């Protein structure tokens, strides 16, 4: 049976590894996009401007209520069409533009991540101690400095557990891009199944690989949380 997983032309080891690489790439590229959107959403929900707050609320609520796969299809099929329609309306001679499954995956997963992260970050902001900010004001720090030097570093402590969960969910959600023909781990597994007719073997393998990634993530996250909490719990 092990020749099935062999590396090289005969076995599926190399294809699956290549798929794994795409999955990891996708997750790693999505993370900053999602975090960025999350911060935007959090700022919007906390802003003093009512329309901005409504926008933040709408984005986080709607995105969290939709199945991830629907979001993915909307982005993948819809955004491409819209983009081209828009381009052509603006300039009828414009060459049709391209929208790769990878980009669609990053945008869709990033939007989902951003919506959940927005809530996590908002909660974290709200649990920050007001006195910490006031102490910054009292020595004449600007709002920017207060955000960068005081709020942001302390934010991690509150946000990390939530963001960690989101990361793990996102890692798993990358499997959805297989449905739009991005050659990630899940899709390469499907291809292998199509040829070898051994669905159980290969899907189980895929599960085990995802599982390993999640367990590894949990270990790393626990480490990061310990670091973020340094100085908070009594070290003595």
């Amino acid at each position, binding site marked *: 049976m092990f020749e099935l997983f062999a590396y090289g032309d005969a076995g599926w080891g190399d294809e699956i590894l290549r798929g794994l690489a795409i999955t990891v790439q996708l997750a790693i590229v999505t993370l900053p996009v999602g975090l960025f959107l999350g911060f935007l959403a959090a700022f919007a929900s906390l802003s003093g401007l009512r329309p901005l707050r409504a926008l933040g609320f709408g984005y986080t609520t709607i995105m969290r209520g939709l199945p991830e796969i629907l979001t993915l299809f909307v982005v993948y099929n819809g955004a491409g069409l819209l983009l081209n329609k828009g381009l052509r309306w603006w300039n009828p001679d414009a060459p049709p533009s391209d929208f790769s499954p990878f980009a669609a995956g990053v945008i869709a997963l990033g939007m989902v991540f951003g919506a959940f992260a927005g809530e996590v970050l908002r909660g974290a902001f709200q649990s920050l*101690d007001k*006195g*910490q900010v*006031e*102490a*910054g*004001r*009292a*020595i*004449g*720090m*600007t709002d920017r*400095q207060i955000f960068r*030097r*005081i709020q942001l*570093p*302390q934010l991690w*402590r509150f946000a990390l557990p939530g963001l960690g969960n989101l990361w793990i969910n996102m890692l798993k959600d990358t499997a959805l891009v297989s449905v739009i023909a991005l050659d990630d781990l899940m899709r390469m597994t499907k291809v292998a199944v199509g040829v070898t007719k051994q669905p159980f073997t290969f899907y189980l393998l895929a599960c085990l690989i995802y599982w390993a990634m999640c367990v590894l993530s949990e270990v790393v996250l626990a480490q990061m949380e310990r670091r973020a909490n*340094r*100085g*908070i*719990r*009594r*070290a*003595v």
Partner: protein
Amino acid sequence: MTKPETILKAEDIHKSFGRLEVLKGISLEARNHDVISILGSSGSGKSTFLRCLNFLEIPTSGKVTVHGEEILVKNGKPQNVRHIEDIRSRLGMVFQQFNLWTHRTALENVMEGPVQVKREPNAEARDKAEALLKRVGLEDRMHMYPSQLSGGQQQRVAIARALAMEPDAILFDEPTSALDPELVGEVLKVMQSLAAEGRTMIVVTHEMGFAREVSSEVVFLHEGRIAEQGPPDEMFANPKTEVFERFISKVK
């Protein structure tokens, strides 16, 4: 010693929260070397007034002048917003709850202002911070996080942090009332030594001993107004108003 010059001047400060008018026109002047104690029962507006001085609360109206720099407030709008950070950096503030930054060590807490706000070079700021922490008796705690320090030690770090900005005056909001009784002494000692050095200080306190012995002037707030004001010996010996008389009889 130099001749007393006006460092901080507050004129006709009003402050309302919603419909509740908490400060009903308070004026105060602090000259060089003044140590002003602000007394008053709970809810009389002491903290609010102190916080208005460095614009942690924006007054509803009034004028604050620090060392020539002035900010006028009308209808809750400061007329010169740019100067607010400037004024803040000239007035040190020590909070009841210390408000040390929990993610930084004692030393980093003290260095933060000089490096980030005054843009002093790191090495210089570090030397100064170390000297200040030694000054408040914490030379052996410099690299500890706030959570590893006792309340009294945290408050001394907070005082060092305020001093590091080389402020024209320091505001204290009940600096000892969140402390266990046995820790109060160490903080009062540091404050006393600051007064002895000739620092200008404005102190909201419930420590009558401190108010009587250390301060050069006592201000008694009652329901958002200054009910009585003067040198401590005189005031405590001959309370002029009934409210102040009742107040000192209660707290003693």
